């Protein structure tokens, strides 16, 4: 047992969590399925999406430079950050230069990835999460458990209790509508009072220098229009050549995430307030974050940079569906998280994640840009083996097994011995417990093997002729 298997075991035993996971991912799967059925050309569109992303990845520096040029021309300030620390330092510096006491934040997994909440707290800057789910988990002090529904692990009773404790005008909280109303009231004034608004970006549009946000709530616009300063933190892989290319990807992203065709609010933000604008930030900063992405390019993980952060792989993963997001122990859970976490946290720290996978391939099947997730996970397993990260017991056992597999005579002998030994533990055809088989027999019975292997029986049948 280790930290991961501990967390997984606890998650698997948590029936409330399971109800929440089933409800959220089940609805997402059903809706995605309906959306895909309603679009006969979906597979072709998916292939186009892959081509668009691969084209950008193949020319990432070209598009970064084009984006930077156009963003600067629109009045934005563009910053570059090699890693999480630099990204946070730049963001905090901008906040401090703006004299910010409070910042509002629209949901951004990249912000979680670089540790922005922590950095803001350490800088003594009040952080107000505006996405309802992020607001809930901020009050609860929890990390997100899903990249699209970060608070799926919270029940309505838990949310009501949090709101009652923290909102200034909670009201009766008898219904979910009442809770949402309370959150709306709570955050309204804070939107307008913030000095700085921080968002992520779903897309960085190279030929206009604009960034795109998609939300269902409208919090991204309320976060980024009222304050004096808007800061965007975005991974460098978010680039697309043009707004038209973004539309092709949006058709895939939203259906894959929630089954809708577009989110309620799809906004392209291009630079700060201009002469003539009635509202908008005075300053518009874009922090382009690498944090392992260029390393992924060079280390056989380029396909992972296609990821649109739709969450479909999570929703369809049999492992995620049993253990939820927190058990993964990283910022990103599910199949995409199992590929990304070793990049962000190092393979030694996270080697369970690529292994805690049956390689069934449904993740790739539902990925809107056909990322070969099982292949990438296998790649991590290969690397872990090469770097000697596997426990000696595993290496030893596999070594013995391999030795025998390559020596058929020895293999037959071993089988001839093992089968009758195994049968000693059998009762009426089933083995309920057996040394070395605890992993299997703890939860299920093992059918007893035949008295003689196929190859033995075959030899006997032949000699009987």
């Amino acid at each position, binding site marked *: 047992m280790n930290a991961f298997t501990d967390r997984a075991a606890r998650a698997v035993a948590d029936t409330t969590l399971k109800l929440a996971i089933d*409800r959220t991912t089940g*609805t997402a799967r059903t809706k995605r399925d309906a959306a895909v059925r*309603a*679009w*006969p*050309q979906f597979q*072709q*569109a998916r292939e186009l999406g892959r*081509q668009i992303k691969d*084209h950008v990845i193949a020319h990432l*520096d*070209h598009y*970064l430079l084009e984006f930077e040029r156009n963003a600067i021309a629109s009045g934005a300030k563009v*910053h*570059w950050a*090699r890693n999480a620390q630099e990204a946070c330092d730049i963001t905090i510096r901008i906040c401090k230069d703006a004299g910010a006491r409070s910042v509002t934040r629209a949901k951004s997994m990249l912000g979680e990835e670089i540790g922005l909440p922590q950095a803001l707290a350490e800088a003594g800057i009040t952080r107000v999460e505006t996405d*309802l789910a992020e607001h*809930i988990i901020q009050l609860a002090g929890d990390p997100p458990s899903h990249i699209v529904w970060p608070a799926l692990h*919270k029940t*309505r009773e838990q949310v009501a209790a949090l709101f009652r404790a923290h909102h200034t005008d909670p009201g009766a909280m008898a219904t*979910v509508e009442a809770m*949402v109303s309370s959150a*709306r009231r709570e*955050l*309204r*004034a804070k939107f307008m009072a913030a000095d700085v608004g921080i968002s992520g970006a779903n897309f960085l549009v190279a030929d206009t220098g604009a960034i795109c946000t998609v939300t*269902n*709530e*409208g*919090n991204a*616009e*309320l976060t980024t*229009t009222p304050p004096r300063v808007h800061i965007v933190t975005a991974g*460098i892989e978010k680039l697309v*050549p*043009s*707004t*038209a*290319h973004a*539309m*092709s990807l949006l*058709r895939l992203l939203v259906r894959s995430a929630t089954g809708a*065709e*577009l*989110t*309620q*609010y*799809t*906004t*392209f*933000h*291009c630079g700060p*307030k*201009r002469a003539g604008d*009635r*509202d*908008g930030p005075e300053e518009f900063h874009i922090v382009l974050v*690498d944090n392992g992405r*260029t390393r992924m390019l*060079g280390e056989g993980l380029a396909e992972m940079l296609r990821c649109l952060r739709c969450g479909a792989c999570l929703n369809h993963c049999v492992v995620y569906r049993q253990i939820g997001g927190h058990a993964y122990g990283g910022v990103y859970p599910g199949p995409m998280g199992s590929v990304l976490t070793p990049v962000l946290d190092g393979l030694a720290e996270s080697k369970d994640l690529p292994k805690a996978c049956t390689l069934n391939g449904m993740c790739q099947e539902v990925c809107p840009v056909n990322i070969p997730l099982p292949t990438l996970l296998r790649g991590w397993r290969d690397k872990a083996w090469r770097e000697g990260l596997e426990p000696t017991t595993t290496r030893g056992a596999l070594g013995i097994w391999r030795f025998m597999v390559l020596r058929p005579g020895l293999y037959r002998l071993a089988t001839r011995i093992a089968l009758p030994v195994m049968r000693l533990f059998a009762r009426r055809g089933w083995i309920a417990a057996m040394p070395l088989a605890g992993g299997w027999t703890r939860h299920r019975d093992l059918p007893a093997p035949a008295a003689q292997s196929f190859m033995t029986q075959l030899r006997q049948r032949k000699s009987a002729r």
Partner: protein
Amino acid sequence: MSSARADILAAIAATRAAAHPAMPNAAEITAQAWRLLDMVPGLRPDRVGADVVESFRARVTLPAIGATAEHVQSWAEMPDAVRRYLATHQLPASIALQPHPQLQSLDWQGVVTHPTIAVDEPVAVGLALGGVAETGSLIFHSGHDAPTLFAFLPVHHIVALETSRIWPWLEDYTAALATMPHPRNVNLVTGASGTTDIEGALVRGAHGPGFLHVVLIGERSGALTSDL
């Protein structure tokens, strides 16, 4: 030029050189990108019928999108449409009116209008630059007569949309966008704000408007054309 920028670009250049030794120039890269979109018309979902206006109206009023819509023949009828809406929803006859001359020039008798919007404004009346039939989206561009927050702060958002300004497909809109200076904010608003963050239950009006009402102005039907 910070060294982070140089490092990141250098790292990318190094891997790219290894993977694609023959480097296309900028013009070729851009051309390649646009060629990819050649196949888009053939693979869009079947959402736009011969009558673009009806396609838009049918889509925007789908329960999943959650807007209401009505049709009037001319701009002169817009204030009546608003008065009817206020009466139906038992709202006070006081609205934030987007400071657009087309709206301001109408006869708002009986309704108090103000050109700025309060944080908990009950009703705002605005004007969309256009619409997209494929998705039932309203397009707003920020500008002198269009504060962005008009589309986000009110509880009820009533939007005038000329039927002649409905683009069939998202790409028709982006092609039009490419011919004009990109505004600070481009909003595609597709229905009323909502969230399913608490136990998956859909609630409207999480932060943006909980009610979106579209007043279609002009001809009831419109043939499919990309020329706007």
